[in-house]
């Protein structure tokens, strides 16, 4: 059998050197996507005129265009229109593309999570004279997040995996490193399988953390829960 398992284990550490950049791209894009997605959701639910219609189109566009093409448009295409962008770093382009695209998806998740919060909760906030923001922060958003966390967590995991597209515009990440390794040794299966296994492991860990978080957020809604 032509499979060098020893080689595969040898290159793990060399590929793992690039784990931080993967986590950095994935996590930063995710945080931005959550913030922008929340803002989108609030605008859509409030049906803010003009902005609302505009957002509908923007969201439709970013959901409709393949991620790789979006990255190419940001990295290769936009400097044509705005020469100042010609110095844009590949990593920045990836982060921008991933965060806007996923903000479009997450806005739908948050929008429906907002709708899942009972109207009575908003009224209770108003009746005790909380400001809109106080009510959102202390009562509404925690309930929105509780509903949204399962789907949002899945997007985070997806985004970590999507960062591997960065390799196509020259970012040196885990995949790029694996390609370099295999180019020298011609041991493609070992190299790519190694990256694949690492991504799988990340996914398993994140899914575990997500289920912990879901349990934590679920506490106030379980009958036996009495802790503050």
């Amino acid at each position, binding site marked *: 059998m032509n499979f060098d398992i020893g080689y595969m284990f040898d290159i793990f550490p060399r590929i793992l050197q690039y784990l931080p950049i993967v986590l950095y791209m994935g996590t930063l894009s995710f945080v931005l996507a959550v913030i922008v997605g929340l803002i989108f959701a609030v605008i859509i639910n409030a049906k803010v005129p003009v902005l609302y219609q505009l957002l509908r189109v923007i969201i439709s566009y970013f959901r409709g265009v393949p991620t790789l093409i979006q990255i190419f448009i940001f990295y290769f295409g936009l400097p044509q229109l705005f020469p100042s962008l010609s110095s844009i770093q590949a990593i920045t382009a990836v982060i921008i593309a991933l965060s806007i695209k996923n903000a479009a998806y997450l806005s739908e998740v948050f929008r429906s999570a907002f709708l899942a919060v*009972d109207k*009575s*909760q908003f*009224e*209770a*906030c*108003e*009746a*005790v*004279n*909380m400001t809109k923001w*106080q009510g959102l922060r*202390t*009562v509404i958003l*925690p*309930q929105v997040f*509780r509903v949204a966390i399962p789907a949002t967590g899945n997007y985070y995991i997806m985004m970590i995996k999507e960062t591997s597209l960065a390799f196509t515009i020259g970012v040196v990440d885990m995949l790029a490193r694996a390609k370099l390794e295999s180019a020298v040794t011609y041991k493609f299966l070992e190299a790519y399988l190694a990256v694949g296994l690492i991504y799988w492991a990340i996914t398993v860990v994140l899914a575990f953390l997500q289920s912990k978080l879901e349990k934590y957020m679920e*506490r*106030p*809604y*379980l*009958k*036996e*829960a*009495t*802790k*503050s």
Partner: protein
Amino acid sequence: MIKIQNLHKSYGNTAILKGIDVEVKDGEVLAIIGPSGSGKSTLLRCLNFLEKAEKGIIEIDGAKVNVEQYTKADVVQLRSKTGMVFQNYNLFKNKNALHNVSEPLRLTKKMPKKQAEQVAYDLLAEVGLKGKELNYPVALSGGQQQRVGIARALALNPYVVLFDEPTSSLDPELVEEVLNVMKDVMKQGRTMIVVTHEMEFAKEVADRVIFMADGYIVEQGTPEELFTNPQNERTKRFLKNYLTLHN
């Protein structure tokens, strides 16, 4: 005192309140009864601007607002004069009993956390919920939730507490404990407006009873007058139906 003048409210083409005039004195307990859809809950909800009335003047303890030209500050002021107890309790589902009472204090009265929690502990004890402070709403019975709701309303020390059918969602055996807490509130001399289907309670506790139907105040008087000697045909019919149902 509370003074409501010529209050109008409609949903689309359906008029719900067709010119309501009410006065409530300091410390008075006013019960509002009437058939479903008569506008009694809407009236209550217009007082703290959960519903925006289209026309009329609302004055509560010196805060006077013409609903046709109100500012955000007017709404805040009216809400600071009122506490509300909802039919479905409307407790903050993500907060335990203690924080349901203390958080509004902390946020809207800028009370330090410790002090707000102390007030909440005391009020929860007053409504008979000592030991339940850390329970989340889901781990409380309907009657217990409503008592937390009353404590939350009282914590802000409002001029008037608005009760919107506070016992309508409760199992019959839980009604009593909530009514008892409401009687305690009354004994403290707080002004109360209670929309209710509990005629016995209205009879026993209210200083004055208003009968509403079809968006109007049809008749009002002391419980004695209204229940034993109603003048208006509509009131008579309503009370007769009620008595047939409950005897």
